[in-house]
């Protein structure tokens, strides 16, 4: 239940902040829409609207290509502090 309650009140975080453009180099901002295993979180859990979810997903895919965000995290290569070199 605790897990569910975390996502209970749903609204688009990006609409509230009136975000027009998301930069793929801003990794800390992408963390919200990524799961523990660095999968893209579905809209039903984050509450993003369709427009912003599309933006987020393209931006995450760009960041993956640029080696800023991992594609997968397996048990063998556990990332202890994935965003340690953030500034």
């Amino acid at each position, binding site marked *: 239940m605790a897990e569910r309650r975390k996502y209970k009140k749903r609204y688009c975080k990006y609409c509230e902040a009136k975000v*027009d*453009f998301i930069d793929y180099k801003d990794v800390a901002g992408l963390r919200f829409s990524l799961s523990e295993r660095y999968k893209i979180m579905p809209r039903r859990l984050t509450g993003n609207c369709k427009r912003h979810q599309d933006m987020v997903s393209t931006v995450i895919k760009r960041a993956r290509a640029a*080696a800023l965000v991992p594609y997968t995290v397996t048990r063998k*290569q556990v990332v202890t502090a994935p965003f340690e070199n953030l500034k």
Partner: protein
Amino acid sequence: MRNYENLVIVKPTLTAEEIQESLKAIQEVITSNGGEIATTDDMGMRKLAYPIEKNERGFFQVIYYSAEPSSISEIERRFRLNEDLLRFVTIKYDTNREVAAWNEMVKKAQGKTSAPKTEEAPKAEETEETKAVEAEPETATAE
């Protein structure tokens, strides 16, 4: 002319001077193909999210420029031939919103490059600290 952005990752095995030389060569590729570089933004040596060609780190630089759309394929072809480059990501800024964001990012990058001249000393300390932090987890994994 259209606005573009290139993120370039250079091999970490090179020395600092060689990295700067190869970055210059990369920028020359853009200018020789009719591109106009607005600014460059160094993100510095960073840990990669996953190893590329068995390298764990890379030197990141972002180049903002405007060029003819037809010249991009030639620029990318030249990038692929470059062996110092681990990875490059080209992004097009086409719609009004994206162009506005591009202008803002260029302004930010310009502010970054002009500001450090006055604050050179504290910045150097910061990089040393981050290096120390980066070095620690490596030793932990070796154990």
